[in-house]
């Protein structure tokens, strides 16, 4: 007898686990197969705080969400087969699995494919040298295995993956020599770009990598400017002293198992599987979830996973049609919240967005330089236009992205995002800020600062989010850096606060000359720069 389950889920990442949990909660007998030795997919290397709202687990670090999912999977009786490499999916819902060098076959009445995505590569001279790697690979090395991928890194790609991994490289003590992108605009969230640029990492847009230098391993890189049709401009080559080159140029769905089983693709020659409104593919009873369906954030993958889990439960007769319909529509509403704003699927690739949803002119410098210019900053609703007495938040979140923890963080109601979580946070001008700093620590984009212009006659204080170890001690003297990462003035650390609720985002309060309170946005004890 071949072993049978009601439902087989392939892939134990955020989508697969969410799908399995959702189905198991409804009595479905579920088994999850994953080729890795531990479950969680890419979640356990996501050490940053997630965006979204409470229901999307915003402000919680990715790996903690992974721990929660594993606990839930155990409680609901989901069986997880690890080190189980699914080699084949056949159209009678049978899978062939390599487990401990033995080929096993399993069958189910329904299948959910949550195999995720793989990193895209770009070929250039020397790209096969050791030291050239996917940004995701670098992240795995650092965050799962505790190994620095190199000491001086060039990041190719300014999307969220490139920006987030660059930041994490800095946290690991690796120098990020530059971030380049062939596009003329930053691809990822402005807040992700800002938290890297303010540390002094240069961003070269309209630049491509020409070659990786070296014979045994990478010993340098050559980049060059490109024109509007992405062709290299001769004579613009620039050498960078790096030992590692990380490639972050997008992801592609791993849909081979589906193709193998005869599933119809969205485009005949493409790798995106076609689905109906319940995530069912052209094969009856075969559903998909997560990045294999559409490349998105883990937050979305968990929701699409739950939708597929319910759909499979309904298909198998465990969930009543009406209940399933209601639950799916609730989940779709939750997903729709994440799908709004400037980075929504429908706005993808658009370069003509000139105004935010509220009608504020978008920050050009954020897109072209990776930070908000001094002359743009005052126009946004999170930044007070007139002098405020005493300590107050300055929110430098100026793009419509789905996120609202700042609103919940402030118990005094100083910060308002509203019902639609992609709206820009606004600061109430008649606020009663007590300087608790929770908004600063809980903002996943690290875009909130506390400014107190009345610290003394000559000095102001700036409180900034800080995630680099060791934390500077009170009394440490150093320099304050601007949003651009340039030296603005001398600064002194007054105190560094942490507590459990802040979850490893420290609040660093520095003292700067009064006129610098709206310029100083980072602190370094190093004299260089």
């Amino acid at each position: 007898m071949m072993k049978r389950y009601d439902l087989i889920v392939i892939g134990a990442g955020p989508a697969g686990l969410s799908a399995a949990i959702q189905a198991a909660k409804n009595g479905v007998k579920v088994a999850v197969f994953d080729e890795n030795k531990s479950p969680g997919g890419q979640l356990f290397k996501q050490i940053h705080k997630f965006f979204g709202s409470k229901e999307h687990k915003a402000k919680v670090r990715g790996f903690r969400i992974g721990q929660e999912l594993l606990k839930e999977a155990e409680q609901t009786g989901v069986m997880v087969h690890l080190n189980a490499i699914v080699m084949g999916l056949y159209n009678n819902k049978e899978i062939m699995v390599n487990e401990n060098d033995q080929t096993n076959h399993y069958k189910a009445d329904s299948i959910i494919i949550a195999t995720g995505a793989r990193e895209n590569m770009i070929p250039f001279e020397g790209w096969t040298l050791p030291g050239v790697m996917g940004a995701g690979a670098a992240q795995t090395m650092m965050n799962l295995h505790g190994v620095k991928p190199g000491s001086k890194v060039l990041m190719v790609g300014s999307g969220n993956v490139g920006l987030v991994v660059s930041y994490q490289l800095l946290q690991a003590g690796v120098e990020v020599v530059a971030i380049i992108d062939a596009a003329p605009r930053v691809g990822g969230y402005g807040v992700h770009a800002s938290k890297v640029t303010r540390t002094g990492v240069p961003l070269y847009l309209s630049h491509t990598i020409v070659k990786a230098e070296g014979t045994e391993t990478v010993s340098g890189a050559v980049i060059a400017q490109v024109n509007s049709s992405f062709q290299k401009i001769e004579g613009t080559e620039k050498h960078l002293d790096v030992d590692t080159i990380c490639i972050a140029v997008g992801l592609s769905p791993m849909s081979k198992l589906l193709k193998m089983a005869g599933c119809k693709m969205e485009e005949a020659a493409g790798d995106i599987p076609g689905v109906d409104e319940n995530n069912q593919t052209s094969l009856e009873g075969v559903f998909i979830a997560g990045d294999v369906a559409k490349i998105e954030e883990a937050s979305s993958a968990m929701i699409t996973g739950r939708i597929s889990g319910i759909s499979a439960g309904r298909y198998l007769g465990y969930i009543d049609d009406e209940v399933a319909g209601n639950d799916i529509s609730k989940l779709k509403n939750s997903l729709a919240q994440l799908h709004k704003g400037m980075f929504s699927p429908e706005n993808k690739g658009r370069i003509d967005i000139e105004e935010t949803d509220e009608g504020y002119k978008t920050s050009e410098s954020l897109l072209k330089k990776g930070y908000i210019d001094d002359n743009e900053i005052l126009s946004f609703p999170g930044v007070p236009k007139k002098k405020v007495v005493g300590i107050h938040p300055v929110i430098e979140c100026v793009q419509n992205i789905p996120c609202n923890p700042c609103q919940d963080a402030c118990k005094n109601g100083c910060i308002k995002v509203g019902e639609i979580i992609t709206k820009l946070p606004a600061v109430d001008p008649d606020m009663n800020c007590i300087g608790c700093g929770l908004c600063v620590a809980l903002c996943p984009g690290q875009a909130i600062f506390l400014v107190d212009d009345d610290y003394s006659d000559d000095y102001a204080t700036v409180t900034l989010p800080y995630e680099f170890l060791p934390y500077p001690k009170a009394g440490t003297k150093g320099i304050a850096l601007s949003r651009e990462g340039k030296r603005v003035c001398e600064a002194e650390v007054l105190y560094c606060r942490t507590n459990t609720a802040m979850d490893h985002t420290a609040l660093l309060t520095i003292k700067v000359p009064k006129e610098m309170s709206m310029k100083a946005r980072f602190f370094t004890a190093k004299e260089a720069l």
Partner: protein
Amino acid sequence: MNKYMDRNRSLGEFVHGEDDDIIICRCEEITKGEIRRAVHEGMMTMTEVKRYLRAGMGLCQGNTCGKLIKGIIARELEISASQIEECTARGPARPVEINVLGNEVESNE
């Protein structure tokens, strides 16, 4: 007949490109120039290029180079990459030693 399927159409003379020596398929060490030349020699689909050169037939099974090969064929044929037919997907989806395939357990408790 669309442009893609027209196998009688001339692609012009093969001109050596400056980046032709870059390896595209790392597992089988196939260069960009070899793939471009294969297209000029009449290989117009992913499957044809794979069988002709072994590009995408190595350990990673085209996971890294598949998209790159598709782009090279498309540029050579001057059509969109979405028109290039992909290779047939068949098991095993991951590399496996033949003794593992042979070690098949029929009754699995």
